[in-house]
């Protein structure tokens, strides 16, 4: 079971958009049921990140992140999704 943290400014809007898309990608690649996604505010990432396998954020990387960090802005713009998808699938192995 991989634990994924999805972060944005409020833990509400853009992280929800990214979460739905990331879940779709993971399910399509056969990871259904093998991951758990939590959402939070970017300000909480530093203190929460220790409990997660990796973080995807729709904003900049803050200091003190204790796990791999991926930029998920592509899930909002639609530009460069393939590259980040590859990185996510790599981290899921």
């Amino acid at each position, binding site marked *: 079971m991989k634990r994924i943290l999805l972060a944005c400014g409020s833990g509400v809007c853009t992280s929800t958009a990214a979460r*739905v898309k990331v879940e779709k990608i993971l399910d399509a690649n056969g990871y259904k049921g093998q991951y758990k996604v939590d959402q939070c505010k970017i300000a909480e990432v530093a203190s929460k990140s220790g409990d997660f396998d990796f973080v995807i954020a729709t904003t900049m990387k803050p200091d003190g992140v204790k796990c791999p960090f991926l930029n998920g802005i592509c899930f909002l713009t*639609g530009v460069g999704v393939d590259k980040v998808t590859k990185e996510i699938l790599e981290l899921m192995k």
Partner: protein
Amino acid sequence: MSYILSFFNFIQGLGATVMMPIIICIFGIILGTEKGKSLRAGLTVGVGFIGLNLVIGALGSNLGPAVQQMVTRFGLHLSVIDVGWPAAAAIAFASTVGMVIIPVCLLVNIVMLLTNTTQTIDVDIWDYWHFAFTGALVAIVTGSQTLGLVAAVLNMVIIMVIGDYTAPGVEKTLGLPGVSLPHGFSGAYAPIAIVINKIIDLIPGVNKIDINMDKIQEKFGVFGEPIIVGSVLGIIIGAVAGYDISKILQLGITMGAVLVLIPRMASLLMEGLLPISDAASEFINKHFSNRGKMYIGLDSAVGVGHPLTLSVSLILVPLTLLIAVILPGNKVLPFADLAVIPWMFVLITPVVKGNGFRALINGVVVLAFGLLIATNLSPLITTAAINAKYALPSNATQISSICDGANPLTWAIVRLNDLGTIGMVIIAVVAIGLALMNRRRILKEAAELKLAQ
């Protein structure tokens, strides 16, 4: 127009919890989303509304009496509860203007693109609520939904131009190439920051000051955690209200719960809007992607992670509470929107070029005025909430929010309408003037681009 609006009035009479699912479902089908998916999206939005209603109810019925006791005991006039932006967004979407805001704003964006008055493809459908919020308040002031809608459109035009103008700064300071932030809340602070920054430049000595904010995030990090902020504030308010120890602790846990639960409920609203937002952005992207230099308009949440933005916002959480207590004329008790302070800074940060001291000065100024604005707009926001059939706890309680209740642009648009038609004319002249200025810049840029090739 009036037939359409009265039809929407009927649907609105059903209450946001019934109306929004129907509207979202219909939009979804029109935009070509599958029926089942559209229905599920609509129902998810309904769930979000009911959830938000429950949590705001818990907030009001617990915090309301404590706040009133606090007022009678110490004469602390903080009687207006800050219910936060998720509630403000829900109120905005549930208003008559809010019901038509998504297709109207899409249309405005398309018209602006066709007339070269913007370079931004605004795919951030969710944040159209800011324009609907302004529109809903103007509709209350003027008693006309049509004028409300006009105000919402003009608000969007102004914000789109600000989005274009700040985009190079966003690219440079925030490292987001090809992105602009036409955000109704963040955008309003860019012009103010430009003015304050200029003033500071002119003061000898002061214009050299900078504060290093590197270590702030570690030390003040706790102010970014809603569960802690909510619980501690609840306990303090309970104590000031003169509650006994068991009631103080209960208020503390309840307020912590409210701050954690509000975003959860709002994310359901967002999830329901996603199919609509995806379909709309696909449509607009497909038709307008090959037109010179283009920006994709996103929620300014993408810029919230900037270290300076986060640090200054964290310091400002306790400072805002202090300002709220000592500022004469303020009645707003900052609470749910303490989490929204970073949004104010997303565009201030590029303007002050990462200078910590200037960001802090900007923050104190806009928050102090913001609290007065939020106080001034609170009767209108309370009316809008009642119009949206929101369950307000006790009749005596008034509500407001920092986002967008404290938004200077929203305030200016609403209060100019107090002057009658002339007010709206002024807003229209400003909006159209900005749009034409932007058009000249865009055409010049396009000509230079062509020359360079």
